Structure formats: C-alpha cells, structure tokens
C-alpha cells in the first residue's frame, strides 16, 4: 500500500481489499478523515459531494417550503373562516391554492424524504457514500433552483393559478395569457430532472453499494420504500414532464396537442398528468412508511413484525399504483366498464396497506413501548393512516366518488394521507435521527407538547372537512354563501389549522433550542439495531472507518436477539483507504464485487445545475441566444464532469499508444 498523496498516481487495476480496523485517533482513521472531509468555507459549500451535507440541505430546504406552503394555507383558511369574506380577491386566492398544492406536493413531500434517504442510506447500508456523489449534489442544486424558479413568479403576482393539476383548456393560452402557467410548466420540467437523477442515484446505490453480507432481505424498510418510490419515479416522471412540455409548446410555439379546434384533446392532459400523479402520491408516502417501519420497532424493543410482508406490500402498493390513475377522472364520461375496473383496483390497493398497518400494531402489541416523542408520532401516524386509508376506500367507490369528487371530502382524504403519512413520520423521524445528524438530543418536554398540539390541531382542522364535503362544499372556491350550511365547519377548520401551526412552531423552537443546548448524544442513544447507530453522532465524513460485514437485519441487536444468525463484524472490516473508496457488491446477495473509486468534491454539479436552470429562464423569457449559450455551458460542464479520470480508474493508468496485437 502506497502513501498515495497524489491522487493522479496510477492505482492498480485489481487488488485484494485490505481488512483491518481503524479506531478513532489511529493513523488510518486520521488518513480517512483527510481523504473525505470537504474544504471549509464557501468552497466546500459549493463543491461538496458528501451525502450527509446534501441530505441536510434537502431537509432544510424542503422544510422551508413546507412552512411557506403552510403560510399560504393559513391565509386561505382566514379567507374561508367565514362566508363572503373579502380578505383576498378571487385571483389571489386561486394563486394561493395553486402554489400551496405545488409547494407541498412537489417542493416538500418528496424532497424531504430524499433528505432522509440521502443522509441515511449509506449509513444504513454500510457504505461510504451514494453510488453517484456528484449526481447527488447536482440533484439538490436543481431542486433548489427549480423551487426558486417556481416562486419567482409569486412576488410579481403571476404565480400559477390553475390549480396544481393545471387542467387544460383553462391552463392554455386562450384562457391564461400571462406567464403564470409557463412558469409552472418549465419549472416542473426542470424539477423533473432533479427527481429523476435522484431516483437513479437511489436505485444504483441500493443495488451496488451495500456492505458485504447485507443481502436484499436485510436492508431496512426505509430503503425498500425509497427504492420502490425511485423505480416508480423513473417510469412516471416522464409522463408529467411531457405533459408540461407539450402544454408549453402549445402556449408558446402554436402546437395543437390540447387545441380543441384542431383535434387536440383536453383529456390527454388528464391522462398524462394522472398517469404520473397517482404513482407520485405513493412515492411520497412509501418512504415515510418505511421511516416508521424502521424507527417504531426501536421503541417497541423488538424487530418489526412481518419484515418480508411489509417489504412485499410496499412493492405491491406501488405496482398497483400504476393501474389506478383513472380514479382521478371518474367524472369525465369514460365508459362504465373502464370505471368499474379502475374503481375496483383502487379499492383493492388498500389491502397491502392493511398488511403494513397490522404489522405496526402487532409490533407495538408484542413489544414494550417506550413512550417518548418519536413513539408518539409513530403511534399517532397509525391512526391518521387508517382514517386516510378508509376515506380513500370511499372515494375509490365509483358512484360515491361521483358525489365526493371535487368536494372537501377529497381535501380531507388527501390531507389525512399526506400529513398523516408524510408529515407525521417526517417529524417523528427528525426527533429520532436528530441525535445522529447533530450530535444532540431534542428536548422531550417540548417534543411531547409539539406532538399533542399537532395531533389535536390536525384532527380539529381536517376532520371537519369530511363533513363539509358531505354537505356539498366544492373545492377551490374562494368564498361561500352563509346559507350553504358550511360556516361552522369552516370556522372549526380554521381554528384547528392554526392550532396545528402552533404545534409546528413548538417543533421549530425545539430544533433551535436543541441545536444550541441539547444534551450530547452518544452513538446509539435509542439502543437501535441498524448500522447508522454504529458510528459517532454526528458521523465522521467517511461514515465507517472500516466497511462492516453484515450478518443480519439488526446488526446491533444480534447478541440479544440470538436467533442463530451470525454476528456482524463492525470494528473489523474493509479499510479501503487508497483515496476515496467504498465497496461495490452484487445486487441480491451483497457479495464483494468491485472496489469503487469515489470522486473528489467538484464544482461541476453546481455549475451544471445553475446552467440547466438558466436554460429554462431563457425559455421562459424568450431569450433565444441566451438559451443557446446556456446549452453550450451545460455541455462544457458535463464534459468537465464526465472526463475520464485516472484516479477513478475510468481510463487506463498510462497513455498507451499500443498499435494492437495484430495490426493489419
């Protein structure tokens, strides 16, 4: 082993990976720190490819969008608290509800889960980073720029205003002449790039960079959830990107895809949008369900009941999720036979969810609950999940849906599933992993307060929406008459939503207070079973000083579980420190397969992200030359990124002018 200071020196093309240990403070560990740490200051900030930093960025940025979307909602609730209020004009209200939907669905609900997964996957899988660290950095930058792009329209009073689902012809040029919809369309195509490359990163990471011995049946359920969502996104996102691109073409270049007078069809938009939209809603809840499946057992002091069943049910839900999109279109006049098929499937899709619910309840029942804040969030989540799921069965029933559709009943359902199955596990997950992220414990008292206030406020705010929906209140109306019978219900909902907001505020206060004064966290403050709890809190830049060898699903519980499984080796494993390295393994059994060279920090992801976003700015503003220039800039950035590097052994070590064995 050479003292490889110069990264461009020629690494060998094969070698036997060294085994050993590298305790904190040893020469090897210090060497690892030098190899993996990012530069300080703004240089490191722009060029880092550390998945943990990127994960935190995703979490913080997505949370900020959550707060923005929440403020939008609270303003709407003020307007709707009483009949015939004039706090907002109809146009303002319409932009608010559209941006609320866009923010929550696209800028919060998936990125927050990407944040968790980005941070945790390599740690849970026993790896030093994701498979594509630079791509990881790029996906964050594009997400940030897409969010800014979408919001830039707001201060100009030209935010998208046709609902987040943006139906044509209302979203077309004839009825919506301003740039509002163009901002939405182009912003979504840009965001789709981030989502897609992020999904690709997760898929390849799962199949390639696990610790040896972590066979596919040993990965945490969060990993199953995110993997399923990532595969779904790879196939579903192009549908919505295409829809928005075709809409932009119609609006700006005169094509006729949605132009009724020339053979275009409004229903085409609905099909393309919902063929993406439905898989998407499962993509934003399955990883969160995975968070609960991984964290809840820790507080039940036993492994999850039915690991295989839950993993399979995750995949089954997603698969079925591709076959139900018509349930967003039951009222469009499609043939009854088609409606029957999609309606039945939409009801049946709740069965895999039932598997998960009973698995969680069984885990609690058979375990010994620890009544701390994360546990409360996960237990509360189960109730909200069940309510959301049951109201979902109602809207899946076609004739019922013909009444419930486009009323507040659906609003109730979607908020129970989105807040219940995404936000509550996310907040619980933050309470759970905060010690790992920041090395400090969160305050328990504030935590419990935040849970109860959030839980009560949420139910107070959203349960009455079932009732206003059953009383016929349509969605997307900026006001209503006092004679419709909706006034009291709306008042209660508004109060509840503000109570919920207070709960979020308490949570934020808890974060700030805990960052400053929280108790120091040990490696494994919860006595949890998975690999991320085997490294210091917060983890060092290199994650694992040695790549562990894994023998079960619960490496840190093996001694006490004592179920005949082997013993994982956590302190003695692959050193892999000739530069930034991690192990690549076979997809299913995780046998060692290749020594992967990981890239150094790079500015290319930032610049490629910036230039990509600027292409869309150019398209929005019709600056043709600028757009072409940005395309060229992107090509150059990509070349710089992709240039084969000796250090990564993407090319042969020496320049070889070999004329070939048999020149002829």
């Amino acid at each position, binding site marked *: 082993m050479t003292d490889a200071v110069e990264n461009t020196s020629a*690494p*060998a*093309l*094969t*070698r*036997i*990976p060294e085994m050993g240990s590298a305790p904190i403070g040893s020469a090897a560990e210090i060497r690892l720190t030098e190899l993996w740490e990012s530069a300080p200051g703004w240089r490191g900030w722009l060029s880092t490819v550390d998945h943990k930093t990127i994960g935190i960025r995703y979490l913080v940025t997505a949370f900020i969008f959550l707060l923005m979307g929440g403020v939008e909602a609270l303003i709407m609730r003020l307007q709707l608290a009483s009949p015939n209020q004039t706090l907002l004009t109809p146009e303002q209200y319409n932009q608010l509800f559209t941006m609320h939907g866009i923010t929550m669905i696209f800028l919060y609900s998936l990125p927050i889960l990407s944040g968790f997964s980005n941070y945790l996957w390599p740690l849970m899988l026993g790896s030093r980073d994701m*498979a*594509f660290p630079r791509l990881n950095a790029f996906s964050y930058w594009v997400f940030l720029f897409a969010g800014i792009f979408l919001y830039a329209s707001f201060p100009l009073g030209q935010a998208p205003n046709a609902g987040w689902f943006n139906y044509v012809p209302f979203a077309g040029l004839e009825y919506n002449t301003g740039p509002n919809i163009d901002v939405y369309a182009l912003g979504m195509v840009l965001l789709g790039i981030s989502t897609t490359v992020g*999904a*690709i990163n997760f*898929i*390849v990471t799962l*199949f*390639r960079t696990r610790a*040896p*011995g972590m066979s596919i049946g040993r990965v945490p359920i969060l990993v199953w959830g995110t993997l399923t969502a990532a595969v779904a996104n*790879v*196939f*579903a996102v*192009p*549908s919505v990107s*295409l829809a928005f691109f*075709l809409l932009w*073409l119609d609006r700006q270049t*005169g*094509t*006729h*895809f949605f132009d009724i007078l*020339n*053979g*275009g*069809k409004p229903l*085409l938009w609905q099909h*393309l949008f919902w063929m993406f939209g439905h898989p998407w809603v499962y993509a934003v809840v399955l990883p969160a369900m995975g968070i609960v499946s991984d964290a809840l057992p820790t507080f039940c002091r036993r492994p999850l009941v039915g690991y295989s069943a839950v993993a399979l049910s995750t995949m089954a839900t997603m698969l079925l999720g591709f076959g139900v999109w018509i349930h967003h279109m039951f009222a469009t006049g499609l043939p009854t036979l088609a409606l029957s098929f999609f309606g039945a499937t939409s009801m049946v899709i709740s069965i895999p969810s039932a598997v998960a619910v009973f698995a969680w309840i069984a885990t609690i029942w058979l375990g010994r609950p620890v009544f701390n804040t994360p546990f409360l969030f996960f237990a509360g989540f189960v109730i909200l999940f069940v309510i959301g799921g049951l109201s979902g069965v109602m809207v899946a029933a076609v004739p019922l849906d013909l009444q419930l559709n486009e009323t507040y009943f659906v609003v109730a359902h979607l908020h129970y599933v989105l807040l219940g199955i995404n936000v509550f596990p996310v907040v619980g997950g933050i309470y759970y992993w905060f010690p790992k992220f920041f090395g400090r414990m969160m305050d328990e008292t504030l935590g419990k307060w935040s849970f109860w206030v959030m839980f009560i406020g949420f139910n107070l705010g959203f349960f009455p929406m079932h009732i206003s929906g059953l009383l016929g209140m349509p969605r997307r109306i900026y006001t209503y008459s006092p004679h419709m019978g909706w006034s009291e219900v709306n008042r209660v909902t508004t109060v509840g939503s503000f109570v919920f907001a207070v709960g979020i505020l308490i949570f934020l206060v808890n974060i700030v207070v805990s960052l400053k004064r929280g108790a120091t966290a040990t490696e494994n403050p919860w006595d949890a079973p998975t690999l991320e709890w085997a490294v210091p809190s917060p983890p060092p830049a290199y994650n694992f000083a040695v790549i562990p060898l*894994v023998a079960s699903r619960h490496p840190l519980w093996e001694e006490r579980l004592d179920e005949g499984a*082997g013993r*994982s*080796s956590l302190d003695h494993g692959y050193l892999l420190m000739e530069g930034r390295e991690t192990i*690549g393994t076979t997809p299913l059994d995780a*046998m*060692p*397969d*290749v*020594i*992967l*060279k990981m890239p150094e920090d790079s500015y290319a992801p930032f610049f490629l992200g910036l230039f990509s976003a600027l292409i869309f700015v150019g398209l929005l503003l019709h600056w043709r030359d600028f757009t072409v220039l940005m395309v060229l800039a992107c090509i150059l950035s990509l*070349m710089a990124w*992709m240039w*084969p590097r000796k250090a*990564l*052994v*993407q*090319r*042969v070590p020496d320049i070889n002018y*070999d*004329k*070939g*064995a048999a*020149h002829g």
Partner: protein
Amino acid sequence: MAETMQLDQALPVGSEGKHSGGWWGVLALIATEASLFAYLLFTYFYLASQSEQRWPPEGLPALLVPGVNTVILLSSSVFVWASERCIQLRQSQWSLASMALAFILGVCFVAVQLNEWSKKGYDMASNLYGSLYFTITGFHMLHVIVGLVILMALLLWMALGYFDHRRYAAVSIGGLYWHFVDVVWLFVFTSLYLTPYLF
C-alpha cells in the same frame, strides 16, 4: 464473522465494464427515457384514434427516405458495437476508425432527416399531425444529437489513448446509449411511418 463470503479474492478497482456505477446509471437512464418515448407514442395513438378526419391528414407518409435513414442509423449502431469489440481485441486503431464511421453515419442520419423535415409541406404549428410528427421526431433528433456529442467525446478520449482492453467503461456506456437511441427510432419509425399503412 460473515459466513461464507470470499473476502480475500482480488477485486477490480474503479470503473470496470459492467461493474461500474456508470453502467447501471445508463441502464436507469434508458429506462426513464424509454418511458418518455412510450408516453410520446401514447399521445400519438391517443390523438390519432380520436381524430375525426382521416389520419394522417397529410396523406400516407413516404417510406423510401426514412427507410434508408433507418438503415443508416442501424449501421452506425453496428459500427459502435464493432468499435467496442475492437477495443476488447486490442485493435485500438480499428476501434477508432469504427467509431469515427459510426459518428459520420450518425451525422448523415441527422442531415437526411433535416432535409426530410424541410420538404414537408407543414410544420409543427400547422395542424395536430404536424405538432405530433415534429415533436416526436424532434425529441428523437435531440437524443441523436446528444448521442453524437457523446460519440465525439468518445472519439476524443480514444484518440488520446485513454482506453484499452482492460478499461473502456465509457465506450460501453456511451455505446449502450447510442444503441438505445437506435432502438427508439425503430419504435418511432414503426408508429409514425408504418402504422398508417396498417389502419
């Protein structure tokens, strides 16, 4: 200790062919781009099937020029494959020549199609068929151009002697993308040019 894992065998280091991250990455990229084309063709068939006038409204498309162009594109794929094979057989000069020929054939495809486009009596905004035709072939053309940039980069790196029979992952990865672009063309060609004759 982990059970029966072989921990002491030599492993390849870095981007080695199908062990490389990039290979898996391009496979996933192909999956998502293939989906994009699937949705494009869905759009085409959805709108065509509901059209009230005869389809295509501009008449049955001529097959000679695009047919020849298909052959050109497919042969460029053959030469990309041959280029990779030559590297494996340590024939680096032949590899370079093959790749260059593939590139030239790709450029021919673009030129021929641009010419075909200019001869159409309609454009993207004329009618629905024009919108569909030019958007679908346009998306494909975009992928071809990206593919050509990739082939150009490969040519450059091959000329610089970066690759040999042990390390040539970029050629496999870039080559796979090019083959994908060609396979997509077969679907596009069949849908736009051949199916009107069948229905």
